[in-house]
C-alpha cells in the first residue's frame, strides 16, 4: 500500500528533471564511448580521430573565422533555396488543391518531374550555371519543392468536406473559408512536408557543395579530404547533424505554436 502510494510521487520527481536531458543521453554516451575507445587506442586516429581532436580542430577553425564563414554561406544557401523552392511548392500546392483547372493543367507535369532524382541534374546544372550560387540555389529549391508541394496538396484535398459545407452554410466568403477552414485544416500536413523538405534541403546542399563549390561546409569537408585533415571532415559531419537537429527543432516549435488545438501536439 505504502509502496503503491509512493510510486506516482517518485515519477513526478524524476520525470521533469530528466525530460530535457533524456534525448541527449544517447548522443552524449556515443561521444564518451568514442573518446574512451580513442584514448585506449582501439580506434586508429587515421580512421576516426578522437572527439577531443575534432573539438580542437573546430576551435581552431572557429578562431580563424573559416568555420563561421562556411556555416554562414551554407546556411544562407539553404535558407534562400528553401524559401524559393518551398514558396513555389506551396503556391502550386494551394493552386492545385483549390482549383480543378490548375490541377489538371500542371499536376501531371509536376509528377513527371518529381520522378527524376534531382541530384542527377547536377552535371546539367553545372553546365547551365557553372559553380556559382545559382547552381546550388536551383538544386536546393528543386529538392525542397516536391515535399512541400505534395503535402500541401494532400492537406488541402483532405480537409473535412463537412467542415467546408458548414463554413458555406454559415456564409463564409471564399477568402474566409480558406483562412478559417481550409488552411488550418491543411496545416498539419503542410508541416509534414516542411520537415521532409528540411531534410532534403541539407542533403542537396551538401552534395552540391561537395561537387561544385568554392565555399560552404561541403567545400570545407572536401578541402580537408585533399589535405588528409580527417578531424575537419568528421567535424563537418557533426555540424551537419547539429544543423539538421536545429532545423527540425525549429519546425517542431512552429508546429507546437500553430497546432496547439491538436490533441497530438498539445501535450508536448
Amino acid at each position, binding site marked *: 500500500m505504502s509502496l503503491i502510494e509512493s510510486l506516482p510521487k517518485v515519477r513526478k520527481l524524476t520525470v521533469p528533471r530528466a525530460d530535457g536531458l533524456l534525448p541527449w543521453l544517447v548522443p552524449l554516451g556515443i561521444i564518451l564511448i568514442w573518446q574512451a575507445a580513442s584514448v585506449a587506442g582501439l580506434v586508429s586516429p587515421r580512421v576516426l580521430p578522437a572527439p577531443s581532436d575534432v573539438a580542437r580542430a573546430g576551435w581552431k577553425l572557429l578562431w580563424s573565422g573559416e568555420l563561421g564563414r562556411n556555416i554562414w554561406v551554407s546556411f544562407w544557401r539553404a535558407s534562400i533555396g528553401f524559401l524559393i523552392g518551398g514558396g513555389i511548392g506551396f503556391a502550386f500546392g494551394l493552386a492545385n488543391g483549390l482549383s480543378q483547372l490548375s490541377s489538371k493543367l500542371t499536376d501531371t507535369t509536376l509528377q513527371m518531374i518529381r520522378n527524376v532524382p534531382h541530384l542527377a541534374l547536377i552535371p546539367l546544372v553545372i553546365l547551365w550555371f557553372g559553380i556559382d550560387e545559382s547552381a546550388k540555389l536551383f538544386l536546393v529549391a528543386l529538392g525542397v519543392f516536391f515535399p512541400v508541394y505534395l503535402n500541401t496538396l494532400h492537406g488541402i484535398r483532405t480537409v473535412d468536406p*463537412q*467542415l467546408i459545407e*458548414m463554413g458555406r*452554410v454559415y*456564409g*463564409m466568403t471564399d477568402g474566409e473559408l480558406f483562412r478559417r477552414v481550409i488552411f*488550418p485544416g491543411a496545416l498539419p500536413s503542410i508541416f509534414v512536408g516542411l520537415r521532409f523538405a528540411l531534410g532534403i534541403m541539407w542533403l542537396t546542399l551538401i552534395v552540391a557543395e561537395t561537387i561544385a563549390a568554392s565555399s560552404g561546409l561541403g567545400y570545407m569537408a572536401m578541402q580537408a579530404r585533399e589535405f588528409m585533415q580527417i578531424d575537419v571532415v568528421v567535424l563537418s559531419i557533426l555540424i551537419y547533424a547539429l544543423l539538421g537537429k536545429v532545423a527540425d527543432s525549429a519546425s517542431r516549435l512552429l508546429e507546437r505554436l500553430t497546432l496547439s*488545438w*491538436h490533441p497530438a501536439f498539445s501535450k508536448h
Partner: protein
Amino acid sequence: MQQVLRLPVSSTEAIDAPEVIGHAETFRPHRKSSVTPAKSETRGLPLVIRDLRKAFGDNEVLRGIDLEIPAGQFVAIVGQSGCGKSTLLRLIAGLDKPTSGTISFGDTAARAEDVRVMFQEPRLLPWARVLANVEVGLGRDRKAAGAHERARQALEEVGLAEKRDQWPAVLSGGQKQRVALARALVSGPRLLAFDEPLGALDALTRIAMQRLLERVWADQTFTAILVTHDVAEAVALADRVLVIEDGRMAEDITVDLPRPRQRGSAELAALEGSILGQLLGPGTTG
C-alpha cells in the same frame, strides 16, 4: 438529470388501456394541416413548399412534396432511412438545389442568417476555441461590434459559458453538440433545421438535449424542422409529425398535447406506436 431518470417509470403500463388508444386515434390522420402555432407572437419564418422534386441522376429521391409550415411551428420529419427526409431538409436549408418545385419562406425576403442548420455531427472547427466557433454562426455580423457578447450569450443559453476558452477536442460529444446548437442560435435564426442532431448521443444526454431544444425553441420562437428516425423524439418535441415514404408525404399528424410533455406517458406512447405502425407497415406492431 434526476428528473430525467425518474421519467420512464411513469404510467407506461396504461398503454393498452382502450380509452387511451381511442384518444390517440382521434388525433391521427389530419391530412390537411389546420395547425395552430403554439404561440401568438412568433419571430419564426413560415415555409411553403410546392411540388418539390429532387433527383440524383436517375434516382428520384423526392417525388413531389407539398407542405405548408406556419411560423413558429415545431415540425418533425420521420421516415425510414433513404426515404428522402434528409434530402428535404438539405433543400430547405439551401444546401442543395431542387430539381423542380419551389421553397419559399413566407412573403418576407429571408436573410441567410435567418435560416440555420444543425447537423448530425457537431462540425466544430477543431482549431478554433469554443467561443470563436460560436461566432462563426454570426455569419456576416461576425465582425460587427458586440459579436463576442452575442456569442457569449448563446453559450450561456446552452449552459456552456465556462467552456468558452476550451478547444473542441476536450469537450464531450453532448457538449460539442451544445456548442453547435449555440452556433446555430447565435444569429437569432427564424428557421432552424435539425438533421438528426441527437442521433450520435447516448440515451441520457439525448433526453437532456431534447429538453434543451424544446426550451430554446420556446424562448426564441423560431420555426423548427427536426429530421429524426426516433419516433419517440418526434412525438415528444413536435407540434406536428410528417411521415415521408418513398419521397412522398405519407402522413401529416398533429400532436396536440400540452407542453412540457411527460416522456413515457400513455398518450405519447400510443401515438408513437401508431406512427411506428405506419412506418413499418401493417401487422408489424400490435
